């Protein structure tokens, strides 16, 4: 049962992460390939603040705020580029942030990572705190889900979709395309920061190897598999991917082959991304077109 709780918590963290990416990738058509940077910033900021003695809830807000601000700061220059270049810039940014975590030992302890991150609201570390942490995750995921719903179903959200389909049309309609994009990247990064903080306070130990390009690919897969630009797609995608990942642990794989499981898993993810693009680019839940 505890193990089931654990899977659910991870799935919910990824749901929040995927929902935040979906706002940028799905609704606005911004190819953010460095989204893990904001996940990491949220996790590290929140962990460092809470280890310095601040209340955990406040630390998490701090993590979100810093992730959101960094997102806006990155977006200001990066959004002057179109499409592919934005992808490169964000990819490079993601790697830079990881190198920062790895090299600034005075702050992040480098590759040793940060152990002993407290859980919020006095929830105990270890197995006994699982049900309460699960409830916290459900509440926060629900809040993020509703927030994403509100954003995408508001006039602001519809304007984002216009930007995705045709920037010139959006301009002709009198929308400030640049400002729309900066705002959605800020919101997306803020929510990714929340996902990161949730992750860090749950696992209670983070290190730079938790925030690599692999996580970006994984969350990209969650969004694309579930359905870009849909409300339920990222949720479904995240649950499918996380459950698939955990299910693999139960396969009777001989110990000798343990080494090959991770690469094969990676190959499967890569192949799924390619096949999806070739056969069903809209994902499992297709976007409702008016």
């Amino acid at each position, binding site marked *: 049962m505890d193990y089931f709780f654990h899977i659910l918590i991870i799935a919910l963290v990824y749901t929040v992460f995927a929902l935040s990416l979906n706002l940028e990738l799905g609704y606005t058509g911004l190819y953010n390939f460095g989204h893990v940077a904001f996940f990491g910033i949220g996790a590290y900021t929140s962990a460092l603040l809470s280890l310095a003695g601040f209340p955990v809830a406040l630390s998490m807000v701090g993590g979100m705020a810093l992730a959101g601000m960094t997102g806006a700061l990155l977006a200001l220059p990066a959004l002057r580029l179109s499409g592919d270049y934005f992808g490169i810039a964000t*990819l490079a940014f993601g790697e830079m942030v990881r190198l920062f975590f790895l090299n600034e030992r005075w702050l992040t302890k480098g590759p040793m990572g940060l152990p002993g991150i407290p859980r919020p609201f006095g929830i105990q570390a270890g197995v006994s705190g699982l049900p309460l942490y699960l409830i916290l995750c459900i509440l926060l995921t629900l809040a993020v889900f509703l927030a994403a719903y509100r954003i995408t179903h508001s006039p602001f959200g519809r304007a984002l979709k216009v930007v995705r389909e045709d920037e010139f049309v959006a301009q002709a309609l009198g929308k400030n395309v640049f400002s729309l994009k900066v705002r959605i990247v800020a919101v997306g990064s803020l929510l990714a920061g929340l996902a990161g903080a949730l992750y860090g306070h749950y696992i209670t130990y983070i290190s730079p190897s938790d925030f690599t390009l692999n996580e970006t690919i994984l969350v*990209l897969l969650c969004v694309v598999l579930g359905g870009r630009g849909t409300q339920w797609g990222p949720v479904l995608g995240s649950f499918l991917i996380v459950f698939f990942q955990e299910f693999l642990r139960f396969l009777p794989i001989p110990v000798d082959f343990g080494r090959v499981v991770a690469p094969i898993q990676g190959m499967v993810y890569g192949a799924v991304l*390619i096949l999806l693009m070739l056969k069903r680019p809209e994902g499992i839940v297709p976007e409702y077109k008016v």
Partner: protein
Amino acid sequence: MADYYAQLLLNGVVAGAIYALFAVGLTMVYGVFRFINFAHGELIAWGAYLTLMFSQVLPFALAVVPSMMLVILLGIGQDRYIYKPLRQRGRITLLIASIGLSYLLRNALRLIWGSDLQTYGFEAARGLSFANFIITRTQLAMVAAAVVFLGVLYGLLKFTMMGKSLRAAADNMDLAEIMGINMRRIGLTVWTLSALFASAGGVLIGMDTNLEPMMGLTNLLKAFAAVLLGGAGNIWGALVGGLFIGVVENLGVAFFSPGYKDAIAFAVIILILLFRPTGLFSIIGGMR
């Protein structure tokens, strides 16, 4: 002290020559097909690893040949079976597919050869010294190979019919096709050259340092920086951009912690995007 900086400069030029090889291939694909191939880095890594495999049965110089051919097949194959069917679907589909492909190829590499560092097992050779500089034979080979490859490319683009049609296609694909240029041949040539340069550079980097599964990604990001510096699609811009990245990166070691060596290329990317999104050398004419 001046010697120290001059040595770093020399190292930078050597590294930059290889980055130029990667960047030229990447920018050529962009010039013709208008999309950035995220799987380009994996061609680099596969070139290096396949050579490692063949060098166990063949002498090293011969082992390079089949591995390059396989990488070229890989380059042509990825276009034929993945990118071509997606070309009409919009750029985001292409980008996601190429990211997926790079992930697939990188993990296949880890599956076959493991994640540990590997080397070609050359004996450590004493560097040759000229005046006060030290340069290893491998480094000389790197520069020589880059000069040969890029020289051949220059001749090809400048003096042959193929090169002319390539430049035409880069300028405007549809118009080139209307004029009766065979786009299939153009595509094949571009992928062949791009894969050839990538695998050659991968082998040279493997000779100079070592082989690891992430080498594709690291070098891809540097090639990106070089491409952006030169202005996307501009071959000679990418060449200069590659040299620039190599030099800045190596000189940077004198001022920052070496842990940030890779970050310098990223910083260049961000700075370029900030101040000169069309690239520094966009005035110099090239392929486009």
